[in-house]
């Protein structure tokens, strides 16, 4: 089996198991309150990390590049309460523009 297919199979199987863990093991039951408080905060913690890494991470280093223009455009769109799609498109267009001009 080639390397590529080995990766596809193993990662696929691991991901199926990870996604199913919660619902299969304790589906339909409620979580105890302290656990609930902790998982409530998973969303902001992970989302903030995804934003930060998506904008500033290069190959094992922090970089400041055209993506910052996208961040600015997204923040501006959010400030005027634009719909999510507008926020996303504004970020992509601003980054593409900054790259084309830079």
């Amino acid at each position, binding site marked *: 089996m080639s*390397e*590529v297919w*080995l*990766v*596809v199979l193993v*990662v*696929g199987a*691991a*991901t199926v198991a*990870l*996604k*199913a*863990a*919660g*619902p*299969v093991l*304790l*589906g*339909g*039951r*409620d*979580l105890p309150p*302290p*656990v609930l*408080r*902790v*998982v*409530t*905060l*998973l*969303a*902001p*913690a*992970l*989302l*903030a*990390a995804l*934003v*930060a*890494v*998506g*904008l*500033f*991470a290069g190959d094992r*280093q*922090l970089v400041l590049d*055209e*993506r910052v223009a*996208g*961040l600015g455009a*997204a923040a501006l769109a*959010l400030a005027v309460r634009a719909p*999510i799609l507008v*926020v*996303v498109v504004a*970020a992509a*267009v*601003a*980054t593409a523009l900054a*790259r084309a001009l830079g």
Partner: protein
Amino acid sequence: MAFAFGLSFGVLAKASGMGSLAPVVMSMTTFAGSAQFAAASVLGTGGGALAAIGAATLLNTRYAPISLTVAPSMGGSPLSRLLRSQLIVDESWAVAQAGGGRVDRRILMGAGALLWFGWVGGTVVGVLGAGFIGNPARYGLDAAFPALFLALLVAQLDSRRAILAAVLGATIALTLVPFSAAGVPIIAASLACLVGLWRS
């Protein structure tokens, strides 16, 4: 959206020597954008199968805690729970947040199904059209992802504790970027949710 990211995955996977069929099968079964991008980039830079599996699986370990948050709102037989849980992805989970740590099951499933078709369809078009499209970064797609997460994050910042968890999560992640493999910073950032143990 998912279509555009699927398309860029198809293009990048093809460019990193994964062929045409493997990226499509991966989109259908793994169905997790960041892990697939990580696997493709590790393979493309000659990191080998083990490193690719490690990076992608590590990135997806966040689905263990994420799937725990979904568990209370998902009933039915174990098999149906197993199948439906596969529609959990960052985006479907984030838009389905109903407050207080609960998720809206219908939104989760609906958004998950839409994303799946967009993601797989985009991958197919991406591997087929790889030669014509060139580098997706030219269209600013790499900034679209964080912008989506930023919009979803803002909606989550409804308490001091949430803001603290967000700041802590971003700080942990950025601090680790220079010292760890792709994926590790995001997983480590999930530790920031432990501020929830502290009663206010």
